């Protein structure tokens, strides 16, 4: 019968191969799904994997969608490598967006373009604050950070709702729940004209480099990860688990808040109840599929944004519901977890001899 056998050393081949195999499995299931829904599977594959890459502008759109995903995932990678289970990145993203909107709304018309800096800083601080709440509760009360950070997402959604239905509602907005559009000066500058890519891309790339250095070449990064790999060894070495907890939460909260600020002061230009787009949760998948590695996450962020764009296109061109995106994203994570087994285990055909 088929058995799983332990590998003495994790397989380097499957470390790279597993995400690809998972993608393949997801595509196969997707093809089956398309067929069951009565749509042409080839056209479906084309929409998801070819259309988003077709033109320069399309690639730009891909990057625009991937930027917040990557930023948040970079922070989550720090968390998950430290065994800190921050699931509330969506909430930290939202509070970052709220904080950034607060500063943006204070900008006078025709003000200096440098207001962008405090807008972004506010976003970072907002995200850090929200993440800090979960860190505090874990630190002082030893509460499970999965549940706390998740509960805070629901709270953050209500905070956002309160602000746009209440004090920040645009008086000239026909009573719609939205803030007024932000002044032009507060808008995040584009990288170059002809594309919606913003300087957020630069932040993301800087983040990739920074994370790589932090994780693999700094003493602090090493100490951070040992806490996640072997807590008793971290204690033996004298690494502070409290420091690791706060570092993980503050970094990921700050990055998620930054992503929120970039979205709300960038493509959106105002605060509405539709800001929660699930990026905080999708970033969890980006992080895992990218193996919690900065370079891997760049690729998985692009992949995930292809799913997003593909989903939108599938809705407009094939009449399929947009929620298909969510199905594929969830499926990808599932298949990845299954395929990851091959990294540490080998499938063998075993004959077991009974005593005869």
């Amino acid at each position: 019968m088929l058995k799983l056998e332990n590998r003495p050393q994790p397989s380097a081949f499957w470390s790279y191969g597993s995400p690809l195999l998972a993608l393949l499995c997801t595509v196969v299931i997707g093809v089956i799904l398309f067929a069951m829904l009565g749509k042409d599977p080839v056209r479906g594959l084309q929409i998801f994997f070819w259309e988003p890459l077709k033109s320069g502008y399309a690639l730009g759109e891909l990057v625009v969608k991937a930027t917040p995903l990557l930023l948040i995932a970079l922070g989550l990678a720090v968390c998950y490598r430290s065994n800190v289970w921050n699931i509330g990145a969506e909430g930290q993203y939202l509070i970052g967006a709220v904080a950034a909107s607060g500063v943006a709304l204070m900008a006078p018309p025709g003000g200096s373009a440098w207001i962008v800096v405090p807008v972004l800083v506010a976003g970072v601080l907002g995200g850090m604050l929200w993440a800090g709440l979960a860190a505090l509760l874990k630190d002082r009360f030893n509460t499970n950070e999965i549940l706390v950070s998740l509960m805070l997402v629901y709270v953050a959604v209500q905070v956002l709702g309160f602000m746009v239905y209440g004090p920040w509602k645009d008086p000239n907005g026909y009573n719609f729940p939205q803030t007024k559009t932000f002044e032009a000066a507060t808008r995040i500058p584009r990288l170059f004209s002809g594309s919606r890519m913003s300087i957020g891309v630069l932040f993301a790339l800087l983040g990739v480099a920074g994370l790589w250095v932090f994780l693999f070449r700094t003493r602090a990064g090493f100490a951070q990860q040992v806490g996640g790999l072997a807590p008793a060894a971290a204690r033996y070495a004298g690494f502070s688990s409290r420091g690791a907890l706060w570092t993980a939460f503050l970094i990921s909260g700050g990055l998620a808040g930054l992503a929120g600020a970039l979205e709300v002061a960038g493509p959106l230009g105002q605060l509405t109840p539709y800001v929660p787009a699930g990026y905080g949760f999708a970033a969890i998948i980006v992080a895992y599929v990218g193996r919690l590695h900065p370079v891997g996450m760049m690729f998985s962020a692009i992949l995930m944004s292809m799913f997003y764009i593909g989903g939108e296109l599938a809705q407009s061109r094939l009449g399929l519901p947009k929620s298909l995106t969510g199905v594929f994203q969830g499926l990808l994570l599932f298949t990845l977890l299954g395929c990851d087994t091959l990294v540490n285990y080998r499938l063998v055909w075993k004959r077991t001899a009974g005593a005869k």
Partner: protein
Amino acid sequence: MTYPRLQLTGITKAYPGVVANSDVSLTVMPGETHAVLGENGAGKSTLMKIIYGSIKPDAGEIRLNGQPIQIRNPKEARANGISMVFQHFNLFDTMTVAENVWLGLTRNSLEQVTASIVAKANEYGLDIDPARPVHTLSVGEMQRVEIIRALLTRPELLILDEPTSVLTPQAVEKLFVVLKKLASEGCSILYISHKLHEIRELCTACTVLRGGKVTGVCNPQEESNASLSRLMIGAEPPKLEHKAQPAGESRLLVSNLSLPREDQFGVDLDGIHLDVRAGEVVGIAGVSGNGQKELLYALSGEDCRAAPGSIRMGDKDVSALHPGSRRKLGLHFVPEERLGRGAVPTLSLAHNLLLTRTGSIKHPKFAGGWIQVKKLEEHAAAIIKGFNVKAGGPNAVARSLSGGNLQKFIVGREIDAKPTLFIVSQPTWGVDVGAAAQIRGEILALRDAGCAVLVVSEELEELFEVSDRMHVIARGKLSPSVPIAEATVEKIGEWMSGLWHTVEGPDAGPPQVGEAPLGGAATRVAAERGGQHHHA
């Protein structure tokens, strides 16, 4: 004709990378106490698991009372009269003794089981209360639960895997009484051990395993330690040179250290006095569960709650210092757990250096201290070479090494730091004889070079071999030290029950013998002046 109770022929079991058992044959007669002797890694545990049904062999035949048999799982083994007491107990902490025993049987109700426990315990003189939760028991008492559980299945064959590593010498004697009674009733006993003197005292037959193969079958009563050792490891046990030398200045002074336990299943430390000087090896003996873990946490800095002044290194008060700061003062520590505490299993040997050595980090004081990977790998390679570690290079992950080699690396990592104070816990537990001899040699070499060394170990022979002075830890208290020349197994055994205050005199009764119970249980404290007994 009397069939052998158990006959194994040609048993083979291979795992990726290692053949655990190769064409092993074994014959046990009814009523015989049969030893299975071999060093760590020789394949004894695997063989026993095959007999007990936990593992299936790749080839070979098992016959029980002359009939060939296939044992597919432990339940079938028990149904066939085979019972096993494992080295690592299969007990559930939060459940009572009776519930634990019930889980090991297929019998009917809890009440019936409780009654059987009491009856069996009385029959064999094993003192145990069925209603107590297991986490309140001492290690010796836990073993009694395992034994009663095994006895209640009315076994024809009882397997014991290294039963005495958790017992005081006196408790070992009591165990032997039980086993001899059992054997006299016709039960066969398979006794797994690497302790030569025990096998020669208890067993009438012996099969020796080395590297998965049988190297000899003999009657231990007719053999000497030397001849058994030759069968076990192919040579006489290596002798270590232990020259006497005067001790230097105090490197570690522990004064009246008292610490409430961190973990509710742990042990409180009470008034510990300890002095370790340069150029000497101080040993601490004791069965596990008497406070060693808590004491070591306090000494290494993993637990910083000690009262100010209670732990000093030289003239510095280190009671509240973290491990990193104590390392800077010259303290290096090798913990009992290798994978998971002394080393991170999924990291390479080179990266595992970074746990305690900062030499390859530029500006280690800063968070952003840069890791110089090449320098790190070279350093690791040097340690691997210098300490004879069999590994796939500095980038091999820690868990790919065998237990002995990983221990050699960890010990090497700490000794290479040229410590002024070296603390090691269970230095050769689970390590093969060759590596064990090397490690003990390193400890003595350190001491000869002037380092102060503290060794905590459950193995009395090891402590007798390397220590200059010895303490015993029992129930969170530390005995006074005794020079090694004056220490005997009997005396140390008594001290393990906490009886180091026994006063010689007309009023004092005979020394009390018993286990060293854990905190929380009713204890019998040492006989004070005038032979009073104090029940807590």
